[in-house]
C-alpha cells in the first residue's frame, strides 16, 4: 500500500485515538504533577444555631486571585507520586532502616495505604485469573458434552453472574453473608458461634472477595472457550479416539493446544480487569480489610476532600502496573507471532 493511501486510511482511527485516549492521558499526567494553589487563611467569627466561635476560614478573595494566576494549581513535580499516600519513598526508607527483620518491614509497608491496596490488588489478580481460566474451560467442556436441547438454557443460566452488574451482585452477596442473611446465619448455626462473621476478619474478607471475583468472571471465560470448542476439528478428535486416546487425553493433547490463543486472550483481559477491581470493595464495605488501587482513586474523587492530583497519580501508577503485568504475555505472543511469520 502506498504511504499516502495508508495515511488516509488510518487517519480517522488515529484522530479518534488521539482525542479519546492520548489527550485524556496527557491531561491526567498534567493533573498528577500539580497540587491545589495555596489557600489564604484568615480568622473569622462564625455564628449559627449553636452559638458563635472563632475559627479559621479561607480568604475567598485572595484565594480566587491566586487561582486566577495559576489555574492549574501549584506545580509539585513528582510529589504526588512519592508522598505517603502513594509510593511513600521516605516512609519505606525509614521502615527499611528501622526494621530488624523482613517480617516487621512488610508489616510497616502494608500500613501504608498504597502498598496495602497493591497487596490485595495483586493477590486478587493472581488468584482470580487462573481460577477463572480453569473453571471457564471446565464449564465449557461440560456444557459442550450436554445433549443439544439442554445447551441453550444451560448457557443462559451460566451467563447470569456476568449479566448482574458487579455493584449489585456483590451487594446481594454482602447481604447474604450478613449475620441476618441466609449464608451468614447458616454458618453461625453450623458452627454454633453467633460472633462468626465473614465480614469481620481481613483473611475471610479477602477470601470472600476472591470467591466473588471468580463467580463473576468465570462466565466470560466460559463463553469464549465454548465458542472456541466449536472450531476444534472433529477429524482430529476422531483420529485421536481411533488411536485409543481417552476423554482426558483428547482434552489434554487436542483441545487444550487448540485453545491456547484463547487462553492468552482471556488472560490478558482478566489481568487487566482484575487489576482494577473496585465494585465488590465498595459493596462489601471492606475498606478496613481490603482496598485496591482503583478504590483509592474512587475514594480520592468522592470524599469530602476531593484530591484530584492524588487520584491522577494513582491512575498513572495503575496504568504502569497494568503495563508491567501484561508485558510478559504480550512479549510471548509477539515472539510466537514472529516465529510463525518467518
Amino acid at each position, binding site marked *: 500500500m502506498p504511504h499516502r493511501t495508508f495515511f488516509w486510511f488510518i487517519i480517522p482511527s488515529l484522530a479518534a485515538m488521539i482525542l479519546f485516549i492520548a489527550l485524556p492521558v496527557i491531561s491526567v499526567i498534567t493533573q498528577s504533577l500539580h*497540587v*491545589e*494553589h*495555596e*489557600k489564604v*487563611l484568615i*480568622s*473569622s*467569627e*462564625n*455564628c*449559627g*444555631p*449553636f*452559638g458563635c*466561635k472563632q*475559627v*479559621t*476560614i*479561607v480568604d*475567598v478573595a485572595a*484565594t*480566587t486571585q491566586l487561582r486566577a494566576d495559576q489555574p492549574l*494549581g*501549584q506545580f509539585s513535580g513528582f510529589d*504526588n507520586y512519592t*508522598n*505517603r*499516600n502513594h509510593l511513600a519513598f521516605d*516512609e519505606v526508607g525509614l521502615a527499611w532502616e528501622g526494621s530488624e527483620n523482613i517480617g516487621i518491614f512488610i508489616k510497616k509497608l502494608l*500500613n501504608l*495505604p498504597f502498598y496495602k491496596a497493591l497487596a490485595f490488588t495483586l493477590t486478587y489478580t493472581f488468584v482470580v485469573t487462573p481460577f477463572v481460566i480453569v473453571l471457564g474451560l471446565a464449564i465449557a467442556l461440560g456444557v459442550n458434552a450436554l445433549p443439544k436441547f439442554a445447551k441453550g438454557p444451560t448457557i443462559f443460566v451460566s451467563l447470569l453472574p456476568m449479566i448482574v452488574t458487579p455493584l449489585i451482585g456483590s451487594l446481594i452477596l454482602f447481604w447474604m453473608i*450478613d*449475620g*441476618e442473611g441466609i449464608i451468614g446465619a447458616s454458618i453461625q448455626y453450623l458452627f454454633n458461634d*453467633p*460472633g462468626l*462473621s465473614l*465480614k*469481620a*476478619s*481481613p483473611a475471610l474478607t479477602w477470601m470472600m472477595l476472591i470467591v466473588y471475583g471468580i463467580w463473576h468472571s468465570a462466565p466470560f471465560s466460559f463463553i469464549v472457550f465454548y465458542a472456541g470448542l466449536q472450531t476444534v476439528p472433529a477429524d482430529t478428535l476422531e483420529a485421536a479416539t481411533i488411536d485409543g486416546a481417552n476423554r482426558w487425553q483428547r482434552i489434554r493433547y487436542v483441545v487444550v493446544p487448540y485453545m491456547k490463543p484463547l487462553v492468552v486472550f482471556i488472560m490478558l483481559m482478566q489481568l487487566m480487569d482484575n487489576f482494577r477491581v473496585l465494585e465488590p470493595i465498595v459493596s*462489601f*464495605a*471492606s*475498606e*478496613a*480489610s481490603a482496598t485496591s488501587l482503583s478504590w483509592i482513586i474512587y*475514594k480520592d474523587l*468522592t*470524599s*469530602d*476532600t*476531593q*484530591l484530584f*492530583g*492524588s487520584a491522577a497519580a494513582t491512575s498513572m501508577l495503575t496504568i504502569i502496573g497494568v503495563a508491567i503485568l501484561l508485558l510478559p504475555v504480550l512479549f510471548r505472543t509477539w515472539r510466537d507471532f514472529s516465529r510463525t511469520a518467518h
Partner: protein
Amino acid sequence: MGTIKTIALTATAAAILTSSAAFAACGIAGNANVSIMGNDFPALHAVFSAAEQCAGDGVTVTKNHNKDYKDLMVPALTANPAEYTALTVSNGTLVTLMNDDLVRPLDDLVAKHGSGLNKSQLVTVNGKVMAVAFMANAQHLFYRSDILEQVGMSADELQTYEQVLTAAKRIRDAGLMEYPVALNTKAGWNLGEEFVNMYLGTGADMFVPGTAKVSINNAHGVATLNMLKSLVSYSHPDYLTFDSNATQALWEGDKLALATMWGSRTAGVLDAEGSTEQVVMNTDFAAAPSFNGGTIPASSLWWDGFIISKNVSDADAEASFIAMMNGISTEMVQANNDAATWLIEGYKPSKAASGVTATAMNGAAPYPMYPFMGALHGAAGSELSDFLQGSESAGQALADMEAAYNVAAKEKGFL
C-alpha cells in the same frame, strides 16, 4: 396503627393543600426559575414539597433529592449560571462550598423576606449571613429500658461512656445479649465521625489555633481511641461495616440495647414498621454520654440549612429564597412536626427529638467548621480500623492519621 397513619397522612396532605391555596406563588414577582437540590431523607422531602408550592405564574420550581449531593454540589454550583439556585447543606458541607466561593451572602434577602426567622437560624461567617438553618441533628444514646431494668440499672446511670461500658458488661454477663453495643463505625466517613465526636468530648482543640496544623497525637487522642476500642469490644465483629442503615436494622431487630445513632433515626425506630412492639415500647433516648472525666457530651451538633448559589441572577436568587422560606414555614413544621428536630418557630419537641435536645442542652460542641476539617475526618476514617482490630498501637494510629492528614492538607493548599 395503620388507620392512624392514614389519618395522619390525610391530615398532612390537607395541610399542604390548604397552605398551597393560601400561598400560591408565594408573592414571587415576575418570572423566575427555582431549582433545589439536597440530601434524600423525609424531613427534606417535606421542606422541598412545601417550597414547590411556589410554582405557577411564570415561576418554575424543580427539586432533586440525591444521597450523593455532596459529590455533585461543587461542579453543579461552579457552572455559571449554576445548575441549582438553592441547596440544602449541613455545617460540614457549607465549608466545602465556601472554600470555592460558591455561596451568595443572604443579608439583603434576610432583611427583605426573613422576618419570620429566629436569629439563631442565621449562620454567619465573618458577619455575613451565608445560610439559614432549619433543623438540628446529632448522634446520641439510644437505650432499651427493659433490658437496663433486667440488669438493675436506670437511665440516670448512663451519663458517661464508662457507665455505658458497665451496663454493656452486665448485659453480656447476664447472658441477655453477647453484643449489646453499636456505633456507626463503618470504615470511612462514619468511623471518622465517631472519632471526631469522641475527641470533641475531651474539649481539646484538634488543630493548633489559627493554623491548619493538626494536633491530635496526644493524651486526648489516646483516650479517644481507647474508649472507641472498649466500646466496639461489645459490638458485633462486623462493626467496621456498620452504617446508619445497618445499626437501625440491628436496633429494630432486637439485637442492641445501647447504641449511639443519629437523631434523624429516632422517628424511624419509633414507627411501627420493621420492628416489634417490645422493641418500640422500650426504646428511649438520652444525651450523648461524656467520657474520661469530662462533662461535654462526646458528640457533635449538626444543623441542616439552605444556601443560595452565588452564580445565579438576583431575580432567581430572590425567588429561591422566598420559595425556601415557604419550604421552612411554620405550616410545614406543623404538618411534619416529628420528622426532625426543627429550629423553626411553631415546632413542638416530641420524644423523637429528646436525644438531640438533651445533647445540645448538655453543651455538646458543633461539628467544627474548619476548611481543612474534611481532610482530618477522612484520615480518621481510613487510619483507625487497624487500631480497632488490634493490629497497631494507639500512638501508631494517631501518627498515621496525622501523616494522612498532612498529605491531603498539603495537596489542598492548606499547609
